[in-house]
C-alpha cells in the first residue's frame, strides 16, 4: 500500500517529467530552445558529477576534463575514424571510462583539498595537450564535428538534442537512485562521513571510490560527446575550461548533493541564470560575478543546498517536533532502570 507521501512524490515526478518534455512546445523561439539544450546538458553534467561529489564527498573541480575528453573523443572518432556519430559517442565514453581508472587510482589516494588540486591539474594538462597538438585536435582553430542528422533544420536539431539530453539525464538519475538505495551506496556515503571508520567496518573504500569515480566520468563523457554532436564546433579553451567543472560543483551544491534531484535543480537555476546574463550582459563578465556571489550565498546560508533548506522549513512549519529526539521523562528512565534490574 503506497503511502500518501510516496504518491505525492510520484505525481511530482510525473509532473516534472511532463513539464520538461513539453518545454520544446512551450519555447517561443529556437534560441530559447537552444538555451534549454544548454541547461539540459548542465543538468546531465552536474548529476554525473554528483556520483562522486555527492556520494563520497570528494570534490572534483576538474570534471570539465571528462566533458572535453568525451566531446573530442566523439568528434575525432567521427572525423578521423569515420565512425557513425552515436557509435563514436559510445566508444568515446568507453575510452574515457578506461582512462578514468588510472586517473582515479592516482588521484583518489589523496583527500580533501589535495584531491581538489589534483582534479584541477587534470583539466589544465588536457587544455595544454589539446591546444598544442593542433595537427590532431585542430588546436585553437577548433574542430568541426559533422552533424549526425544533416537533413534536419536547426530548430528540429535543437529539439532532437533536447530529448537526447533528457534521455541521458533520465538514465543518470535512475543509476544514481539505484546506487543511493543500495548497500554499495551506503558504503559510499559512509566514505563521505568518515572514510577510516567505514574501512574499519569492512567497506572496501578504495574500490568503492574508484567505481563511483569511473561512473561519474563516464556519464560526464557521454554528456560531453552529446554536446559535441549538438554544438558541432569544439575549442579546447571552452571544452577544457576550469569553469565547466566549477559550474558543475556550484549547481550540485546549490541544489543539494545528498539529494537525487539536487544537481538537476541547481542546473535549472544556475544554467538559466547564466544564459540570461549572457544574453543581457554578454559583453561583460557579469555572469562570473553573479556566479561568485551565488556560490557565497549558498555556502553561507544554505550549506546543504536548496532542497534540504526547503524541507527543513517544511518540517518546521508542518511537523514540529518530528525531527528532534524524543524526550524521556524521569518516570520513563526509572521504569527502564527497574526493568534492567
Amino acid at each position, binding site marked *: 500500500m503506497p503511502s500518501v507521501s510516496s504518491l505525492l512524490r510520484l505525481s511530482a515526478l510525473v509532473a516534472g517529467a511532463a513539464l520538461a518534455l513539453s518545454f520544446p512546445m512551450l519555447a517561443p523561439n529556437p534560441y530559447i530552445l537552444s538555451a534549454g539544450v544548454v541547461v539540459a546538458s548542465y543538468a546531465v553534467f552536474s548529476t554525473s558529477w554528483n556520483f562522486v561529489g555527492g556520494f563520497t564527498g570528494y570534490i572534483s573541480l576538474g570534471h570539465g576534463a571528462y566533458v572535453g575528453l568525451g566531446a573530442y573523443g566523439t568528434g575525432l572518432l567521427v572525423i578521423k575514424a569515420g565512425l557513425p556519430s552515436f557509435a563514436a559517442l559510445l566508444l568515446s565514453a568507453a575510452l574515457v571510462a578506461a582512462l578514468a581508472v588510472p586517473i582515479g587510482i592516482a588521484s583518489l589516494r589523496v583527500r580533501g583539498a589535495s584531491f581538489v588540486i589534483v582534479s584541477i591539474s587534470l583539466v589544465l594538462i588536457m587544455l595544454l595537450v589539446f591546444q598544442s597538438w593542433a595537427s590532431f585536435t585542430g588546436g585553437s582553430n577548433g574542430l568541426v564535428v559533422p552533424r549526425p542528422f544533416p537533413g534536419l533544420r536547426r530548430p528540429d536539431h535543437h529539439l532532437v538534442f533536447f530529448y537526447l539530453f533528457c534521455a541521458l539525464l533520465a538514465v543518470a538519475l535512475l543509476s544514481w537512485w*539505484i*546506487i543511493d*538505495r*543500495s*548497500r*554499495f*551506496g*551506503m*558504503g559510499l*556515503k*559512509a566514505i563521505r*562521513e*568518515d572514510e*577510516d*571508520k*567505514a*574501512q*574499519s*567496518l*569492512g*567497506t*572496501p*573504500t*578504495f574500490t568503492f571510490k574508484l567505481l563511483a569515480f569511473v561512473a561519474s566520468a563516464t556519464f560526464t563523457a557521454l554528456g560531453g560527446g552529446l554536446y559535441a554532436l549538438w554544438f558541432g564546433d569544439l575549442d579546447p579553451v571552452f571544452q577544457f575550461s576550469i569553469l565547466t567543472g566549477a559550474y558543475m560543483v556550484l549547481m550540485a551544491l546549490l541544489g543539494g548533493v545528498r539529494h537525487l534531484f539536487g544537481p538537476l535543480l541547481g542546473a535549472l537555476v544556475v544554467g538559466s541564470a547564466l544564459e540570461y546574463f549572457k544574453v543581457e550582459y554578454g559583453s561583460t563578465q557579469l555572469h562570473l560575478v553573479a556566479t561568485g556571489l551565488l556560490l557565497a550565498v549558498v555556502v553561507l546560508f544554505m550549506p546543504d543546498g536548496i532542497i534540504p533548506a526547503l524541507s527543513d522549513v517544511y518540517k518546521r512549519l508542518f511537523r514540529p517536533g518530528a525531527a*528532534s*529526539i*524524543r524526550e524521556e521523562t524521569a518516570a520513563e528512565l526509572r521504569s527502564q532502570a527497574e526493568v534492567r534490574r
Partner: protein
Amino acid sequence: MTRRSVETVGLTKAFGGVVAVDDATVAFQDGKINALIGPNGSGKTTFFNCVTGMIKPDAGRAMYRGQDITSRSPHRIARAGIGRSFQLCRIFPRMTVLENMLVAVRTTSLRAQLASSHNRGDIDRARGWLRRVGIDHLEGVEARNLSYGQQKLLELAGVLMGDPETIMLDEPAGGVNPALIERIAALVRQLNQEGRTFLIVEHNMDLVMSLSDHVVVFDRGRPIAAGPPPVIRADPRVLEAYLGV
C-alpha cells in the same frame, strides 16, 4: 580454549624520532577478555592501529588465528573477523542511527551490493543489536544528535553488526558515566560468554581488573608484563611503570 587470537612478533612503529611501538611481541588469548594497559603514550593505540591495518608497521608481523595480517588493508582485516572501536568514538554523524548500522553489513557479490540497503533482513538484525545495547528507540535520529554515551553504544552496536569474532575496544569507558560503564561491562561479559574474544585498551583499572581474564602491560612501546589480573596487580614492574619509582 588455547586457540591463538591476535599475536605480534617484533612489531615496531616509529613516528619521526619517537618509537611508539618498539619490538613488541605479544599474544592474546582466543575466547577470553584480554586487556592492554599502560601509562599514557606507551603505544597502546598505535599498537591497535598497526594490528587493524590503519597504519603500517615499520617492522615485525601481526597475526590473527595463525594467519599473517601484517599490512593488510583495514577492510580485509575487518573481514577476517576483527572489529574495532576508536579511542574518540567514531560514528557517521550525518547518518541516522539505523543507517550507521546498515553500513556495517558485509557483502561481497555485486548483486548483493546493489540490493537495497534497507532490506528487511538487515534492518531486523540492526534493530536486534540496537535493542541489545539499549538505543533502539533512537533508530531514526541523526547520530550527531546523540549524547556521547549513546554514540559509544552506537559504535559498539555497529561493530557487532559486522559479526566479528574478535572485538578490539579502544577505551570503551573513556568519558562515560559510571552507570553506562556498568552497562558496557555487562555487555562485554555477555558477548564473551557467547564466544566473542575481546581485546580492550582501558585506563579504568577497576574495570580492567574486574573484567579481564588476561592483562598485557605496555611501557614505552613494549610489553613489560602479561598475566591474569592478580599477578599483574602484584608485579613490581607494573607499579614502577605507572608510578615512575
